[in-house]
């Protein structure tokens, strides 16, 4: 089966080359049949990639260790759920996932636009073909996921336990879908530049895909944060790690793009800016993929030196060179059709928001690549830590949230300060009341940045609420509909506007969670014996007893041993039980003894989180297995050649020994206020973006109806 998979990739590579060639030839000579054939070629690549993906997935599911990738990243003891995800936890597999998602996304777009954008689409097809070809070339040339082993091992190495988390199942595909999604507007932008048709057509055709890509990328980032919070055992959700930053940068520039294309659609302005933004977004998406693989920057996720770093750099260089050359050579065609009427207009504030978003991206980029920059300038490798990021990003984030509030209040083209005040006085009052309430009722003043953020969040929520309220009132006075119906119809008829407002509200809620949890988190690190009590943020935590479980840890990750604790928590009028634990996974390292290999392999914290709207209580344990070292050494010698049943019995005895007489364990307890709202806000953002992306059925119906009524009129007049 591995041969079939390799053949799929080889044929897909040839087809990608053909797709680019045929579309370009068809576009140059005006022979539509070649363009159609080129488009079909993209569909074929999608088919071939899906076939290859299916074959590899099947190999993972049946644990076929003759596949090098399966032997490396999976094992028979890996739960089925995680066998599926193990495919994209490997370098080669993740490349295949990239190519598959890209070809599927590209096929969908080309299918939907097959009757429109006749001039631009062939070039877009060629660009998409080249991008798909690059990833296929990487696999065919250097990182073939279908490499086989001459002597397949009996058991595989298993999926890295850290990746055994539900969020990790969906996080990479989400992120990749976001990355590949941005290649679609990029491809059409290149097509628009080549054909000099730089109007808003390409934007109208691909806006929705950019938005969908943005949703996926954002969801991926949120899931990554969730994974970090609940699996990594340090208690945070964001650490300014290069790999995290790499996913945030294209998202920020993509956000700027989604805003500024509205200005081009409506006013024909910012054309150069828009094509530059989308080229930058796509380049950053490639850069993100590259960073994860190259190992050039130190990161928790450092993936070791890779063989394909150079190829990625060359491709990124080509993309930048092509984009820059095209933009510069087409400058005369990218002139604005209109001028900014006034600095007091929505478009002017969109420009401002763009500058802030791009500024944020530049700051993060500088910090991420600082080790390389400083090595180039001073000769020594130095790095900046999270405090540096916090210091620079916080003011920019505050400005951004302020703009999030102001933007929805403005009208296009122009408005007067008096009109702004008519709209703004309610939200400003709400923000003021919030400020006073926080100052008098809470100790929020301890962190001025957080206090400012809370007020701005109130401003955004009030502004968005007022928009909905006034719109509903206006509609009701016009149509006399009931409240809920008026609200639903208002949103339905202006999906983009109100979907966007909802996104703004979600972002505000997200920042509420970030500001509260980063400034007012309480953390305790303690060592405790059973019976000991410690307190964190008003909770009394009592270590009741130790637990030891064999095979069957709480989250079903297939860990052979799981040592943990039962904790009684009292406080804030509640009483509940928490069960943090630590999973131990066996290693195949032959230098370790038969028994110690079960204790000395990978271990992961199974954090227990008591989620709450007001605050989370987060608990991790690190049992001390030092007292078991002696008995383990002895068992290693005695039972080295015993049957697995006997060894399992010994391990059970050792675990039981820990349970009965546990040495003090290290606990980390974190009380994080409002942290859940980060993900609630993220959910609202996704919901709002879906509303904005949903095609409006009314518009389609209206078009059909008007066509029929026109025909009716014609035919009636003829009779």
């Amino acid at each position, binding site marked *: 089966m591995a041969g079939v998979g390799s053949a799929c990739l080889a044929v897909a590579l040839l087809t990608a080359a053909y797709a680019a060639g045929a579309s370009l030839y068809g576009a140059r000579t005006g022979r539509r049949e070649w363009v159609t054939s080129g488009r079909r070629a993209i569909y074929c690549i999608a088919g071939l990639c899906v076939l290859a993906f299916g074959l590899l997935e099947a190999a993972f599911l049946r644990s076929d260790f003759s596949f090098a990738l399966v032997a490396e990243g999976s094992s028979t003891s890996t739960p089925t759920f995680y066998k599926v995800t193990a495919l994209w936890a490997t370098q080669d597999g993740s490349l295949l996932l990239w190519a598959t998602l890209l070809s599927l996304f590209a096929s969908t777009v080309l299918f939907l636009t097959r009757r429109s954008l006749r001039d631009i689409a062939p070039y877009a097809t060629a660009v998409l073909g080249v991008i798909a070809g690059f990833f296929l070339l990487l696999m065919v040339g250097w990182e073939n996921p279908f490499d086989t082993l001459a002597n397949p091992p009996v058991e595989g190495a298993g999926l890295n336990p850290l990746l055994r988390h539900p969020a990790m199942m969906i996080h990479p595909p989400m992120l990749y879908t976001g990355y590949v999604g941005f290649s679609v507007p990029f491809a059409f932008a290149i097509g628009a530049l080549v054909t000099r048709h730089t109007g808003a057509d390409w934007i109208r055709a691909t806006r929705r895909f950019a938005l969908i890509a943005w949703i996926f990328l954002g969801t991926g980032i949120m899931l990554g944060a969730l994974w970090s919070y609940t699996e990594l*055992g340090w208690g945070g959700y964001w650490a300014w790690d290069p790999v995290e930053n790499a996913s945030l940068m294209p998202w920020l520039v993509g956000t700027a793009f989604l805003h500024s294309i509205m200005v081009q659609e409506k006013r024909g302005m910012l054309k150069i800016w828009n094509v530059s933004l989308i080229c930058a977004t796509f380049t950053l998406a490639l850069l993100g993929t590259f960073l994860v693989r190259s190992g050039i920057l*130190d990161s928790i996720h*450092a993936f070791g030196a890779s063989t394909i770093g150079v190829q990625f750099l060359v491709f990124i260089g080509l993309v930048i060179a092509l984009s820059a050359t095209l933009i510069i050579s087409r400058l005369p065609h990218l002139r604005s059709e209109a001028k900014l009427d006034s600095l007091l207009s929505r478009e002017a504030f969109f420009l401002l928001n763009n500058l802030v978003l791009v500024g944020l991206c530049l700051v993060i980029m*500088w910090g991420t690549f*600082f080790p390389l920059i400083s090595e180039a300038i001073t000769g020594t490798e*130095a790095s*900046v830590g999270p405090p540096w990021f916090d210091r620079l990003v916080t003011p920019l984030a505050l400005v951004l949230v302020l703009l999030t509030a102001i933007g929805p209040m403005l009208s296009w083209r122009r408005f007067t300060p008096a009109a702004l005040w008519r709209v703004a006085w309610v939200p400003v009052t709400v923000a003021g009341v919030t400020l006073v309430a926080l100052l008098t009722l809470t100790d929020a003043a301890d962190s001025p940045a957080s206090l400012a953020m809370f007020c701005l969040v109130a401003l955004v929520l009030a502004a968005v609420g007022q928009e909905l309220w006034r719109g509903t009132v206006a509609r009701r006075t016009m149509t006399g509909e009931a409240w809920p119906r008026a609200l639903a119809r208002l949103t339905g008829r202006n999906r983009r506007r109100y979907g966007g407002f909802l996104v703004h509200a979600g972002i505000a809620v997200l920042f509420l969670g970030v500001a509260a949890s980063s400034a007012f988190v309480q953390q305790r690190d303690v060592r405790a014996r059973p019976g000991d009590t410690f307190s964190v943020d008003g909770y009394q935590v009592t270590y009741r007893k130790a637990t030891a479980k064999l095979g069957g840890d709480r989250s079903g990750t297939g860990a052979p041993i799981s040592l943990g604790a039962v904790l009684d928590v009292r406080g804030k009028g509640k009483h509940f039980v928490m069960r943090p634990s630590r999973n131990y996974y066996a290693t195949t390292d032959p230098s370790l003894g038969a028994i110690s290999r079960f204790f000395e392999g990978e271990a992961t914290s199974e954090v227990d989180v008591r989620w709450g709207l007001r605050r989370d209580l987060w608990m991790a344990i690190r049992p001390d297995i030092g007292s078991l070292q002696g008995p383990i050494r002895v068992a290693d010698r005695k039972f080295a050649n015993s049957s697995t049943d006997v060894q399992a019995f010994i391990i059970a005895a050792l675990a039981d020994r820990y349970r009965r007489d546990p040495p003090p364990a290290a606990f980390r307890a974190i009380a994080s206020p409002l942290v859940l709202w980060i993900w609630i806000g993220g959910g609202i953002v996704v919901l709002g973006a879906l509303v904005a992306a949903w095609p409006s059925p009314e518009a389609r119906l209206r078009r059909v109806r008007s066509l029929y009524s026109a025909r009716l009129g014609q035919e009636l007049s003829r009779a």
Partner: protein
Amino acid sequence: MDPSRKRKLRLVVALTAAVLLATALIYTSFSASTEASKPSQLKPGRSYELTGEVVKGSISHRGDQLRFRVRDRDGTASVPVSYTGVVPDPFREGREVIVSGELERGTFVAERDSLVTKCPSKFTKDKQSS
């Protein structure tokens, strides 16, 4: 104001903002950065971000304190490290770690919670070994 002067003014404002941001970036990053160093390059009296490999058989616990030796990735020079705080899950002998701190009387005293361990198995390409 006529439009061309207005445009010029806007350009000046935008450029000033860009220059300010750039200056802030350069100034703050160079002043706030910590130098990365291998065990063989450590000098006492300043803080570093130490990178290297955890020496086999060097890990020991003393109360809350974790002690281990870190050696150069491509050499034999090593330095003892004393560390308190949360230990990342993948921390193990032979793993690559990054830890911030300062050299004091021959021991690298690490800042609390500053230990980062590189994730070993995702995307590594050492099929030939082990």
